[in-house]
Structure formats: C-alpha cells, structure tokens
C-alpha cells in the first residue's frame, strides 16, 4: 500500500457497489492500528443506499478504536438521507478522518464540503472493481470517475483496485485485475494505492503474489465490514 497517498482526511468515492464502504471501514481500522495514539474516525456521507452502510459496521469500528460519525437517525424509523452534523468539524480535526461517500453521482453530497476538503488537502480515493459491468473496462471506470468529479466538484487523487467476485473470488481473479488496474490508473491519471483482498476468502494471495514475482506490499487485506443479509 502506497501510504503517501493517504491524507489525514481521506475521502472514498466510486461506482455503486464497488465496495467503497467496506474499503473505507477497513482503511480507517488499519490507520488506527498503525497509529494507535492518534484519534481516528469515519463519517458516513452515503445519502443514497439505505441497505449497506457504515452504521452496520459501528460495532466493529468502535472495537477497533475508530469513532463512527453517523447520520443522527441512521437505521431508525426517522432515517432520512442526511449528512452527519459532526462531519464539517472532523475534516480539520487532529488524527485521521475517512469519509465514506455514496455511489456514482451520490457524490453530489460531497460538494458542500468541497472548499473545506480542498483546503485540508484531502485525498480522494476512487474505488474500482473490474467485475462490476459498468466499470469493467478502463473507459467505463474513467466515465464513472468523471461523473463523480462533476457531481462533487472534487477530482480523485488515487485509485483503489477492489476487483472481486465476493466469496467466489479466486487468486486468478485478482491477478487478472492487475492489468485492468494499471490501465485505469493510466487512463484516469491516478496513482495506484493498492489492490484489495479478503484474507478470509484468499488466505494464500500474498504467497501467490510473491511466487509470481509481484510486490505483495501492494496488497491491502480487508475483513467483511458490511452486513451480510444472508
């Protein structure tokens, strides 16, 4: 993982269903593990999807020392699309802040914080998954990135390769996504942050990487943070 691309305030955007929430939760937990002395928090700015959201991972986050900043009425009977009130202050707060944004043009909610995020030098990570049909090509990924930039007024600063087929992901699926990730990186003009994988699904992937002469340091291990309905 190219840690230089992470900033004290790091925003996660991407195509609907590309795994943004899962990545953002795991990123916040990993930063906290590496810097246990500094406060870490994650803000849920997803005003689009009421089924899978940061609030579902609240327990996991708190157990890992990360404070979840959730919409005040998340998962309650008065749940409405809203932005957590603590987010504006969190952008400049000491320590680390991850911001989990809604998919595609759901990034429009990010626009209201554009000047603060720009002033804070926030990183904007663009998550891609080559197994998602609408971003399965580098061109599709670029179109999606441009739509997000248009909606939010913020240009992504780095690329996250989260290519996976859920529990059916094989090592060859991740390996076959590396070329896609490089092409996305070139076409979008974004440096690559990491390739994500789930050790619970692919425990041997670092060894496979080593044996293929690849840099296992580019891998980012994640646990399942979003809700499994069944």
């Amino acid at each position, binding site marked *: 993982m190219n840690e230089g691309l992470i900033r004290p305030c790091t925003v996660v955007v991407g195509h*609907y269903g590309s795994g943004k929430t899962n990545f953002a939760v795991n990123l916040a937990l990993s930063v906290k593990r590496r810097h246990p002395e500094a406060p870490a928090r994650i803000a849920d700015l997803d005003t689009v999807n009421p089924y899978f959201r940061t609030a579902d991972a609240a327990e996991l986050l708190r157990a890992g020392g990360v404070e979840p900043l959730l919409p005040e009425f998340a998962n309650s009977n008065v749940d409405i699309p809203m932005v957590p009130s603590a987010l504006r202050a969190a952008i400049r707060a000491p320590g680390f802040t991850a911001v989990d944004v809604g998919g595609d043009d759901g990034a429009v909610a990010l626009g209201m914080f554009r000047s603060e995020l720009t002033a804070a030098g926030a990183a904007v990570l663009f998550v891609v*998954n080559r*197994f998602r049909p609408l971003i*399965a090509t580098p061109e599709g990924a670029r179109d999606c990135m441009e739509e997000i930039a248009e909606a939010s007024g913020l240009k992504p600063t780095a690329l996250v390769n989260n290519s996976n087929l859920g529990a059916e992901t094989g090592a060859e699926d991740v390996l076959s996504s590396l070329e896609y990730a490089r092409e996305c990186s070139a076409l979008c003009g974004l440096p690559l942050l990491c390739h994500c994988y789930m050790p619970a699904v692919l425990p041997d992937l670092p060894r496979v990487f080593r044996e293929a002469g690849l840099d296992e340091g580019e891998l980012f291990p994640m646990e399942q943070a979003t809700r499994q*309905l*069944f």
Partner: protein
Amino acid sequence: MSEKVLMKGNEAIAEAAISAGCLYFFGYPITPQTEVAEYMARRLPKVGGLCLQAESEVAAINMLMGASSAGTRAMTSSSSPGISLKSEGISYIAGCDLPCLIVNVQRGGPGLGGIQPSQQDYYQATRGVGHGDLRLIVLAPSSVQEMASLTAEAFDLADTYRMPAMLLADGALGQMMEPVDFSVFPKRELPEKTWATNGTKGKRKKNIVNSLFIEPDKLEQSILARYERYAKVEAEEVRFEEVMTEDADIVLVAFGITARIAKSAIAEARKAGVKAGLLRPITLWPFPKKRLNELADTAKAFLSVEMSMGQMVDDVRLAVNGKRPVSFFGRTGGMIPSVEEVTAEIMKIGESL
C-alpha cells in the same frame, strides 16, 4: 459476456432483461427496486431502447400495456406498494392476453410499511393482483444468478402462453451482490406475435387488443380459452428444487431468500439427527402441488417457512391435502428469520413425531 460479473440482484434483472431483448422499461422509483430503473436508464439508450420514468405506477403499467400490445418485449418493476397501484393495469393486461414482465422486489407492508425485505405479497402475486379470473406466471428467484436467469425465462414463458409473468423477489435479493454468469441461458422457440397491433402495412386485417366484452357469453368464452392456456401452464411449467427430500421426515417448503436460510437449517437439523429436507418452489404459480402431495407419502410433517404471517402455507396445506400435518414459521415486517430459529422449529417438530 462469457465470464462472471459481480452484480446487485436488481442490476442482474435489468441486464438479463436487456439480454433477453427487452428494449422498453416503464417504471417509477421505490426502494428497494430503484436500481432496476437506474440501470435501465443508463443502459437502454445505448442499445436503442427506451427507459421511461412515468409520472406514477398507474401510468407505467398502462405504458407497458401499450408497448406489449405493439408486440415488443417490455417490462415494469416496482416494490410492494407500487404493485398495489399497478394492479388495475395488470388485470387489463391479463384480460388483453398480453405477454410482459412485472417485477416485484418486495418490502414490508401493509401500507407504506418499511424498506426491508419481505414475502408478504405471496397472496397478491398468486391470487389477488387485480380483479377478475386471472393468473400470472410467478417466478421466485433465490440468488442473484436466478434474478437474471428467471427474468429471461419469465419473458419466454409470457410470450409462449401470451400472459403476464411476475418475478417475485425481495429487498434482500434486490440489494445483495453475487457473481452472475450471463452466458448460460437457454433459448426457447417462441410463437410469432400475429396478434400485435404493429401496423397492417395494408396486408392483413387490423388487430384489436381489448379486454372489454359487453356480452357475457363472449366474455365467458374468452375466459375459458384463457383457462385452457392456464391448464397447460400448470401441466408443463411447474419448477422446483429439492434438497435431501428422499429420506426426509420433515420437509420444509420455502422460496426466495428464505429457502437459503432453510437450506442451512436442514443441514443443522441433520447434524442433530433430525432428517429434514427442502422443497423450494421456483414457480409459485403454477405451484408444485403434485410433487408436494407425493412427498406426503414418505415425509411425516411439513413446515412452511416464510417472511410473512403465513401465506404460501395455504398452498402447502392444499397440496398435502390432509395427509400430513403442515405447520408454519415466519418473521414479518422486514425481519429475516435466522438459521437458529428455523432449526429450533424443525427440532420442535422432530420431537413431536
């Protein structure tokens, strides 16, 4: 596409419909099915189709009737309250003998209810959607792969029997993501749509699509002709899956997302020494009543598991026809039953045998 892709159930419905040649979508947003319309809005214009967000569900279903009258493959989708609004139009479509696909990604009801998954629209889908003597072919997917394959199948069934088909999914299947392979769908030989109002070009008599018959004998004739087709559907199109039913003392009956929970529960029960099996109806109408009746000769008890207060259980009782006791377990209002509570229910029945 020859390799698997990762999709939400709602997206899989939309992509499968486009692959099946559906170029016309009429809808209105409602959670948890809105991704069907969103996906159609992105994709259909690129393949020469049309996605139209209507001013209401009532408008959308009537647009669907028009598109289907013209002989095109067309569909609408909604979630429970929206299907209630569409039900008048669905009755007209059935009365006009029009093939089309109606998708219901169910949420909790009644009323505005909630946005979490439910199976509370079983009665509506299999008995009560719209007025008059009518049936829909009702298909119940249990995975994202089936959201795709049964969408394609529903269009073919609708065209074959010239009647509307419904895909009865739920919010969990609509929202969850699983790998899908689009390269595996079989194709059927389909009848030509000689009845379509697509222009005579001066070469034939004009076609009329209509559900109004003022003379009762004519209306009765049209219904009897329709019921002959329904009888053929019941004879030839029943689909179901069986899991470990051969030696089962207790047969669970569950469809959709609930069948996945039931599968895990029967495995747990078997570990504890209770022989349980599962019959998963894939077609809810026609219902696999013949097979259930046969199973009642070997099994000792039946358990219907649903995300409702008990609706399909009526069909299970009719099928078993008093041969064996039929009980029910369900959660409702958007709650998903856990494997543990279903297993406990099986164990309770096991003790009573």
